[in-house]
């Protein structure tokens, strides 16, 4: 039985097409459809319910030590009020998850994880930091999350808050911001490739925050947006998704996320394995040159018919007007002419630098 987020009734009210996602009933799209929602986020703004995401708190004396052990990024030097992206690895170098870490103060962190990985992450982290002096807690049930994304997001939020209290820099956040009367943690982050904010609040406040944002956003072209647009937006922005680009059996050194893997720090789980063998695969972007759409799982071949790898994500890119895919291919074939097999046909692919879409 799927869980419902505090905004379930809002989705139904707006005609959301509900699907099960990571154990939650969430809207895949609203009546106007994925393409309209996608384009609204690129040109104006969209509001997503991301309350299914998991949130953990990590506090006390050894918090930084714990983060540096279980995560690949380096948390030794980090300003309060900043957000940092990181991967979390198994000893073999494959991904447990990708996470965001918020530094509230010296020994007080918020960790945001993927909904589908929440229980696994909690167990994994607990088991690997239990010798340290930390207070580690899953607070997911006490947190609702909304993502306001798109170029008009700042204006919308400013109309509901004291704009001097809003985070200015990308990947920074402010606590205790009053947004339309609701107390929220406001973070300038997102999963769409646009400017935008993620707002964390108490579940009981979420419907009021949702209504306030939708009402304030209407003159700016704000629309409710679902999981479908969230996926096409993140794919255009070439942001990895766990289960697609990131997996337990894919070493994280093969995903092109080295900015978040700090081999210079003392140690982290997975470091030795990652350093012991050079990456075999690479993540690349392609446009589908033939007619058709290449989706996750499509096998990739060279012109000679050699197996080169697999498509990890693929879709028609609404803002670009053509089909795109991210591939995991063997390094030696990364610069070759490549083809994707779709229902028995080989579709020609053309290389495209990542990200496919970059905001102006």
């Amino acid at each position, binding site marked *: 039985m799927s869980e419902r987020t505090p905004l379930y009734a809002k989705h139904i009210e707006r005609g959301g097409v509900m699907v099960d996602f990571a154990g939650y009933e969430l809207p*895949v*799209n609203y009546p106007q*459809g*994925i*393409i309209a929602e996608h384009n609204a986020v690129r040109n104006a703004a969209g509001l997503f319910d991301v309350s299914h995401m998991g949130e953990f708190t990590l506090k006390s004396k050894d918090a930084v030590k714990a983060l540096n052990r279980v995560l690949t990024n380096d948390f030794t030097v980090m300003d309060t009020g900043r957000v940092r992206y990181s991967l979390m690895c198994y000893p073999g170098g494959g991904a447990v998850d990708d996470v965001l870490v918020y530094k509230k103060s010296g020994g007080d962190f918020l960790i945001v994880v993927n909904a589908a990985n929440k229980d696994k992450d909690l167990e994994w982290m607990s088991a690997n930091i239990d010798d340290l002096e930390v207070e580690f807690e899953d607070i997911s049930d006490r947190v609702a999350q909304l993502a306001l994304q798109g170029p008009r997001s700042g204006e919308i939020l400013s109309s509901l808050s004291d704009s001097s209290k809003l985070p200015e820099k990308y990947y920074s956040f402010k606590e205790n911001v009053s947004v339309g009367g609701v107390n929220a943690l406001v973070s300038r982050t997102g999963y769409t490739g646009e400017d935008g904010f993620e707002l964390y609040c108490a579940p009981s406040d979420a419907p009021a925050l949702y209504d306030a944002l939708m009402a304030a956003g209407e003159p700016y072209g704000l629309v409710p947006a679902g999981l*479908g647009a969230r996926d*096409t937006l993140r794919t255009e922005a070439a942001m990895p998704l766990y289960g697609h680009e990131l997996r337990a059996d894919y070493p994280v050194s093969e995903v092109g996320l080295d900015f978040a893997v700090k081999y210079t720090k003392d140690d982290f789980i997975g470091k030795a394995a990652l350093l012991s063998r050079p990456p075999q695969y690479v993540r690349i972007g392609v446009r589908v040159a033939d*007619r*058709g*759409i290449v*989706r996750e799982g499509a096998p990739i071949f060279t012109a000679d018919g050699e197996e080169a790898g697999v498509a990890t994500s693929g*879709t*028609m890119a*609404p803002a670009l007007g053509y*089909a795109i895919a991210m591939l995991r291919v063997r390094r030696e074939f990364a610069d070759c002419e490549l083809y994707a097999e779709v*229902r028995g046909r080989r579709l020609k692919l053309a290389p495209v630098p990542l990200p496919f879409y970059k905001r102006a």
Partner: protein
Amino acid sequence: MSLYFTKSHEWADVDGDIAAVGITDYAAGELGDVVYVELPEVGSAVQAGGKLCEVESVKAASEIFSPVSGVVTEVNTALEDAPELINADAMTAWICKIKIDGLNAELMDETAYKAGL
């Protein structure tokens, strides 16, 4: 001419021994934004109830089943560049024409089809 429907939400507009085939407005609504139609090949034989082609929305590819048995005589190439015609008006956006050699026994008229939605 007469219009028939399938339980799997295709339509066949039969004129003599030629059926124009498409998907219903209901199916188009369920699929969402159609972004690609993999048209069947002219000259290919199809079976009533068997796979005819694939229609892809942003989210996923869906199989379309043929309402009639016969041979594909023509495909709507306008859908290659404008698959969104299916969302605009699914009942006029025919996918292909089939020279019929048999109807699906489970075809319905419009009233029966709409009663089942």
